[in-house]
């Protein structure tokens, strides 16, 4: 208790930063669920691939040691690489794992199995990543670097922690600011896009009534692809933030994060965009407080206890309604 009280703002802001990462990944679960009524279990691997994309691109560009403006440029490149690759992997999943089943009107359970299978394939493919590099005789350095198949790959970027300003007694760092700032910007942009733009309305229309949406001229397949791309890009951004916070990634880094983000989505009300954001932040902060109160070994227990307790009282999650029904 004393630990939490005397470091309250540190735990709060740390929790919010992790919550932002959960929230961004949770968006992908909730968006796809909204339009397809499908839990995209492979979304965790979309995140993980994004994290490796950032590591590899920065490594290939020799980002290590950069300072000043160069560092800023590499940060942006890292975000862009992670977002692009995650979006591409998510879209690939839709084409390979889901769309063919949908076209054959397969029952939802089959799609779920396909999702789990795809998740393993993506994860194991990354676990074995040194092999292809050796086959193709790629750049020795890069191959060395990724050639430790089951080990952590650190972010090849030196981001010094700079303390910027105080919130009460907590000295906010540049990393807190980058993570929370960019997450909030992306969330606001996405929220406005879904609420106001024509395509965003198309997404909501498909989520609420797919047949009626078709009658209005909304191309459902296009909307579905769009949700995979958006969800993927958000997971990619989360991957870069994760690297900034944690510093390393692994082929199985997606698993626990995916479970947490999925928890966040359910916590907020699966299918509800703002619910996913709220769920992410609530989960991040609760975990952070939990680790202060009971020790960091217990933070996952705290997270899932919270989920169970909230679902007992609010079975449809904090904000309840689906993506379809949520409104501006």
């Amino acid at each position, binding site marked *: 208790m004393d630990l939490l009280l005397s470091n309250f703002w540190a735990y709060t802001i740390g929790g919010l930063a992790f919550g932002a990462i959960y929230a961004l990944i949770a968006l992908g679960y909730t968006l796809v669920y909204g339009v397809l009524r499908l839990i995209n279990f492979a979304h965790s691997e979309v995140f993980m691939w994004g994290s490796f994309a950032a590591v590899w691109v920065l490594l290939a560009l020799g980002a290590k040691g950069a300072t000043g403006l160069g560092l800023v440029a590499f940060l942006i490149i890292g975000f862009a690489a992670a977002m692009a690759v995650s979006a591409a992997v998510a879209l690939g999943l839709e084409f390979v794992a889901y769309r063919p089943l949908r076209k054959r009107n397969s029952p939802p359970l089959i799609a779920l199995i396909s999702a789990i299978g795809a998740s393993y394939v993506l994860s194991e493919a990354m676990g074995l990543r040194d092999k292809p590099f050796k086959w193709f005789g790629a750049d020795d350095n890069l191959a060395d670097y990724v050639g430790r198949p089951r080990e952590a790959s650190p972010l090849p970027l030196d981001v010094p922690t700079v303390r910027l300003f105080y919130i009460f007694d907590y000295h906010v760092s540049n990393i807190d600011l980058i993570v929370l700032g960019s997450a909030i910007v992306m969330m606001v942009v996405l929220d406005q896009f879904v609420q106001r733009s*024509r395509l965003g*309305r*198309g997404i*909501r*229309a498909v989520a*609420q*009534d797919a*047949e*009626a*949406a*078709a*009658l*209005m*001229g*909304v*191309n*459902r397949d296009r909307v579905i692809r769009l949700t995979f791309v958006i969800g993927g890009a958000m997971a990619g951004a989360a991957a870069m933030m994760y690297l900034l916070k944690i510093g390393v990634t692994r082929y199985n880094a997606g698993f626990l994060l995916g479970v947490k983000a999925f928890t966040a989505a359910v916590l907020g009300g699966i299918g509800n965009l703002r619910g996913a954001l709220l769920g992410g932040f609530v989960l991040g902060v609760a975990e952070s407080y939990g680790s202060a109160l009971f020790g960091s070994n217990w933070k996952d227990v705290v997270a899932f206890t919270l989920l169970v307790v909230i679902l007992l009282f609010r079975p449809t999650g904090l904000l309840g*309604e*689906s993506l*379809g*029904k*949520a*409104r501006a």
Partner: protein
Amino acid sequence: MLLEVENLCVNYGRIEAIRNISFTVDEGEVVTLIGANGAGKTTTMKTVSGLRPVRQGTVRFEGQDITSTPAHERPVLGIAQSPEGRGCFVGMTVLENLDMGAYARADRKTPKIKEDRDRVFGLFPRLAERRSQVAGTMSGGEQQMLAIGRALMANPKLLLLDEPSMGLAPKLIQQIFDIITEINKQGTTVLLVEQNAAQALKRAHRAYILETGEIVREGTGQELANDPAVKAAYLGGDV
């Protein structure tokens, strides 16, 4: 001919919902399909709007074969449907629903949209009062009006109305039929499905009678309204 349906067969799995039906709708007409529950009226409408795949036969719109055109491309051609059971976007406001109606229009960014919206509000003043209300919280009758208004926002050449009077109070039913006549006078062709056969036959130029998936009679609205067999089967003698 605006719409030509030829030897159309549609199945749900093994069930033949409609068998070998042919009918036409000419520009400027109100044509109605009459039939008992389960006769295949909704299936026919959904097939014209592209929601149901065709097993056999052709659907032509303005002479163009659209049998395999996906549903979402048909509003662009000028086909709009107010579906059975309304199908409003329950989480969107009245205004957003109406905007969805204009989703496929090329001129959706021009002031023409506002004119059309005002036209819809003129036809259904209730919608104007409720413009910011979420559709899911509106009464069944209000949602029915919204569904019709939303279809009108597409500014269609052919308007498909599947039981537009369903769930409406008797006074409103009269109004809806007046509105249909009015819309038709303003130049929109209407294909109408109705349980209220008496009203539908009165308003329609021509009518087809569907029985278990087949067309068994056709004629002008007046002819059928005065036909003893039709009277006995669909008009319940109250005309």
